């Protein structure tokens, strides 16, 4: 592992890669500061720009963008109570209160330091966990992959913000859309309406850019009133000894919790930050301090969202399975650059695998260097009204969509999915399950077909696959757990009644 990691660092520390890592972190932070465009849309929009770069450099830049967007949102959350990204919503609660108490600098400093520590621990954990997991995953065959993907869908149903029925609809719609194009096994065209442009299917980047980018811009057009950005004095950025004493445990808890949540399908930075805040409030000696400027309410969630972002890389790099929309886009980015993530990636493309791991660490250093001295620049950026920004964002997406295949058809698809994204949001559908089902549709179909052929029509074939059986048991548990909740409530009510 050490050898690989050192090779990864040697690759990332080359001047060209270092420059693109810095550029990615800078653009990412800039986008993270702006409300509206999240990491998924940012990566989808900027992906075409990386096509001319060599794969290692491109992936390093994309990783920088991802970390930058995760990082940037916290600054505006603290200074002006506007979360740049959804994962910074929690930081608003106590971060903004700290700013109002004259401690904006410490809040920003702690957010940056907590993110840096968590990101570093996350990068180390990826290095440590990946190799054993890959050695285990090499034994996976089509049945294991099929059941693993099915487990992903089950977890999505349980964790999704929308109702299970709505999430189920999104999964089915995503699967159906993924089957548009030529069938990989028989070559039969499916749902192409005789259009040659659809034979290769619909581009993942176009779908993501439409749903998450254009859809978001259309949603933001509902409110164009200028934001008021008050002048908040930023004095000392470094936390005091007392701040450190209060924050050390939340940072470590947030890092561990965030990493584990990041591993889950449907998990990731946002969920991690919300859960970390709840945990910190729960374990605090005086929970009433939360919401009034408690530094633990900044340190824990900020650590958790960065560790969650790192954890989400594990299923992608080791199994080739994305767990959230950001990693789904990263998967398509890797494929665009001729890299197939999965258990064999470390063997076939070790420079990319370890390059990505090393770039996470380097990216975190870049972000620490960027975020603290440039706080003033990010605040100035916030003063640019959205009404000035949105035409450029739309133009950027139109050029990005066109440049995927040098075809206007992708621009049409961008508009279709942009409108769909806006409408689905208005109807309170969570589009994350749709994009994941869309990305996993083809692989899950292939795995199912191969599994059925391997079984030779005998369903007891599964009994000879202990890993598949284990994952199957996990699916049953994931589906059964929420059902236990009402059962628990009934027991509690029954006990209360008997006490009376």
């Amino acid at each position, binding site marked *: 592992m050490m050898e690989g990691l050192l090779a990864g660092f040697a690759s990332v520390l080359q001047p060209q890669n270092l420059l693109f890592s810095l550029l990615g972190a800078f653009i990412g932070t800039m986008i993270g500061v702006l409300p509206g465009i*999240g*990491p998924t849309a940012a990566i989808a929009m900027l992906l075409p720009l990386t096509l*001319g770069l060599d794969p290692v450099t491109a992936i390093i830049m994309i990783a920088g963008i991802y970390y930058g967007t995760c990082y940037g949102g916290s600054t505006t959350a603290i200074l002006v109570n506007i*979360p740049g*990204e*959804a994962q910074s*919503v929690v930081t608003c609660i106590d971060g903004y209160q700290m700013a109002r108490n004259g401690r904006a600098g410490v809040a920003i400093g702690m957010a940056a330091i907590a993110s840096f520590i968590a990101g570093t621990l996350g990068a180390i954990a990826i290095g440590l966990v990946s190799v054993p997991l890959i050695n285990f995953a090499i034994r996976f065959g089509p049945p294991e992959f099929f059941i693993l993907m099915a487990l992903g869908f089950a977890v999505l149903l349980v964790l999704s*913000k*929308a109702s299970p*029925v*709505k999430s*189920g*609809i999104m999964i*089915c719609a995503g699967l*159906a859309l993924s*089957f548009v194009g030529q069938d990989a096994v*028989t070559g*039969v065209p*499916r*749902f192409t*309406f005789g259009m040659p442009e659809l034979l290769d299917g619909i581009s993942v980047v176009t779908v993501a850019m439409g749903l*998450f980018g254009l859809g978001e811009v*259309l949603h933001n*057009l*509902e409110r*164009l009133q200028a934001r008021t950005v008050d002048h908040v004095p930023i004095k000392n950025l470094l936390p005091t000894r007392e701040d450190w004493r209060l924050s050390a445990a939340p940072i470590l808890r947030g890092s561990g919790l965030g990493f584990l949540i990041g591993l889950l399908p449907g998990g*990731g930075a*946002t969920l991690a930050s919300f859960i970390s805040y709840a945990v910190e409030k729960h374990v605090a000696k005086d929970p009433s301090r939360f919401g009034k400027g408690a530094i633990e309410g900044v340190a824990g969630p900020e650590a958790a969202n960065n560790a969650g972002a790192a954890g989400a890389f594990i299923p992608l790099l080791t199994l080739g399975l994305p767990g959230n*929309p*950001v990693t789904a886009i990263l998967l398509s980015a890797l494929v665009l650059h001729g890299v197939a993530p999965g258990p064999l990636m470390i063997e076939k493309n070790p420079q990319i695998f370890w390059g990505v791991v090393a770039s996470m660490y380097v990216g975190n250093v870049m972000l620490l260097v960027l975020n603290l001295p440039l706080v003033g620049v990010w605040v100035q950026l916030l003063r640019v009204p959205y*009404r*000035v920004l*949105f*035409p*450029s964002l*739309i*133009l*950027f997406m*139109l*050029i990005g969509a*066109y440049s995927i295949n040098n075809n*206007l058809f992708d*621009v*049409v698809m961008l*508009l279709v999915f*942009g*409108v769909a*994204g806006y409408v689905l*949001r208005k*109807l*309170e*559908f*969570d*589009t*994350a399950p749709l994009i994941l089902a869309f990305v996993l549709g083809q692989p899950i179909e292939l795995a199912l*077909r191969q599994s*059925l*052929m391997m079984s*030779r*029509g005998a369903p007891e074939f599964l009994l000879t696959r202990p890993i598949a059986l284990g994952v199957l048991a996990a699916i049953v548990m994931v589906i059964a757990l929420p059902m236990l909740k009402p059962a628990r409530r009934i027991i509690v009510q029954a006990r209360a009644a008997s006490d009376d």
Partner: protein
Amino acid sequence: MSTAVRTTLSGIAFLAFGIASLYVGADLEMGSVLVPGPGALAKAALWGLVILSILLVANGRGKSGIAASPGEGTLPEEPAERGSAVRIAVTIASILAFILAVPTLGFLLSSAVLMAVLAGLGSEKPWSPMAMLGGLLTAVAAHILFVKALGVPLPAGSLWGG
């Protein structure tokens, strides 16, 4: 429009989408259990969509509350401004017009017009000439960045012999 009505309407829309797709894909072969055909999983997904849509319509409402932010959580919602529906409709129509114009007028001219329209639409004082000029300049700057600096081949337009 209430959440219940919106949910019912969305259920009906997905039901229609599922049934129409099943009709379009009716010819796709299901294959056998051992060798599933190209229609097996596609139709299974569409039947799932149809059944869940019926359930959604029957329930009349899903889990209501905060609107789901695409993918990664929820941001606090504020009510939409007056006239925003027109703004969104004009934006969508402008993008559509841009797509139709590109093959003839080329990317530069079409995007310049689009940017001027969008900038004018969004400006504090609607259709302010300065804002529209800003939009136009954005298109020119994007053209220089993408075509000249990054070498992205954007269509020149048949009108100019492209």
